[in-house]
């Protein structure tokens, strides 16, 4: 049998939709475990990235962070914290937040730093205060990249929350980890399929968001380039 037939069989089994640990339950849990770290990471990463991009100070650190963050094995980090802190909210929340910050920060920085210097010069020259320059000119022009950073982080968080099931976290990863432990490929495949669908939905969400949020002048400009 193929991956899809295993997954489809399991997902369409009605029993899996009821009771504790059911699909809807884990789905909602997974959304929560993904959304919260993402939100916190965004609240930290975007302002810091924008600040570094505007002032130029600390740019070297950003570059190093950009290169280094992918090297950190998420599984290892999760397990390390689990060994020391047992299983508490911090154990999964902290690494997810910390690992979600780099793509957000780096892209926010790149977005601001990449705004055409003559636009920044004009904004300053016409008498905008630094706050006005950042909020009215730089951030709107950096939005495409900021959204890319948020999207990358969102996908990353969804994936890592799946793995965090290994240290006891609920969510869709539960089906995968428990299924692997008990040699049942059904839930393993089903869980995997659901996670993939969730990830693609996140992608679509961001595509829609970008259409909504990015100023029309920038979108069309990208197309004519």
């Amino acid at each position, binding site marked *: 049998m193929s991956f899809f037939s295993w997954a489809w069989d399991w997902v369409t089994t009605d029993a899996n939709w009821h009771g504790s640990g059911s699909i809807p339950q884990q789905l909602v849990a997974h959304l929560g475990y993904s959304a919260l770290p993402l939100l916190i990471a965004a609240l930290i990463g975007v302002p810091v990235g924008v600040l570094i991009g505007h002032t130029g100070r600390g740019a070297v650190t950003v570059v190093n962070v950009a290169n280094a963050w992918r090297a950190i094995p998420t599984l290892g980090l999760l397990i390390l914290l689990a060994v020391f802190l047992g299983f508490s909210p911090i154990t999964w929340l902290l690494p997810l937040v910390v690992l979600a910050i780099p793509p957000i920060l780096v892209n926010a920085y790149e977005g601001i730093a990449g705004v055409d210097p003559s636009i920044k010069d004009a904004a300053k020259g016409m*008498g905008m205060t630094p706050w006005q320059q950042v909020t009215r000119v730089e951030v709107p022009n950096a939005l495409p990249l900021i959204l890319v950073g948020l999207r990358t982080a969102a996908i990353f968080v969804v994936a890592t929350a799946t793995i965090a099931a290994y240290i006891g976290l609920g969510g869709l990863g539960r089906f995968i980890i428990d299924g692997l432990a008990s040699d049942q490929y059904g839930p393993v495949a089903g869980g995997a399929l659901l996670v993939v669908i969730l990830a693609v939905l996140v992608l679509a969400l961001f595509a829609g968001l970008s259409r909504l949020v990015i100023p029309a002048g920038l979108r069309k400009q990208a197309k004519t380039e």
Partner: protein
Amino acid sequence: MITFQAVTKRYPDGTVAVDGLNLEVPEGKTMVLVGPSGCGKTTSLRMINRLVEPTEGAIFLDGTDIRDRNPAQLRRGIGYVIQQTGLFPHRTVEDNIGTVPVLNGWPRKKARDRARELLTLVGLDQELARRYPHQLSGGQQQRVGVARALAADPPVLLMDEPFSAVDPVVRASLQDQLLSLQAELRKTVVLVTHDIEEAIKVGDVVALFRPHGKLAQVAPPEELLAAPADDYVASFVGFDRGIRRLGFIAAEGLALGTGPVLPADATVAQAMASAEPWILVTQTGSGSPRGWVDTADLAVIPDGTPLGQLDTKGFGHAFTVGADSLRAALDAAVLSPAGQAIGVDGDGRVLGVATFDQLRAAIQAGEGWQARQKARP
């Protein structure tokens, strides 16, 4: 009025961009800062709105040291136009123009109305208001940049190589627009360019910089052409400055002769009787010029033939008496096969012709030329 007092800009690596600059920008006039690359003209301009801070010296705006003013507030009262326009790509044209008024607290509707007024002022169509900058041509974008700088009606306008990035035809049109705007608005304009022709065309006063931030000469463009302060200025201005200076002298004093002028219905016999080497044939009725006829060629043609039936040689262009300069007249004479310039009135009717001798007399009479020649060492 803007005053530079012993202003110097020295960078940490030792480069001196501006060296002890003393300059007064007259109110309500266009001052052009011109010079080679790296001469400090752009740096000087950007010190006026404090985008660059001087290392030494002070700059006064209407008597107040600009360092005593909050930079952002200072800049709201100064229009700023740059070469790459710096238009905000994320805003429509009208919202771009309305930026400073909105910053100053105007309601958006009022700012947009003002933006539309300004679109007309800079010669753009109203329907461009809701478009985005990238949808406009280079020349249109520059005009929007100027409109944006004028939106809050600042008394001072700074322009940094505003027309350098467009082609010569568009550039000429933008320069003309600036001249007509200034005639109407009378702002204090400081414009930076590397193009001496642009400086001469749009400037009321020209400040010519030497390399490394020192001034060579500050004078009205005509004086720069007539009396350059030294060899550097003379060579920067260009070796044909004598002829270009004629562009500032009106052609009105030029004596015109009507001897060679005959209408199309005059005959070959009349042409030969005039004893002129060349005859200018004009249209019967409108009096506009048709072309020149060499009388030496008339010998073989029957006496009774009307001049209108003959092939004429082209005349290049005519000059309009009362509107054109001596330079235009001289050019007309050079282009003419007869060596004579055709003077017409506002409707194109030929008033007369001027020979090289008559042009020479007018040139030497223009602006006390001889007196100035005697005064030079």
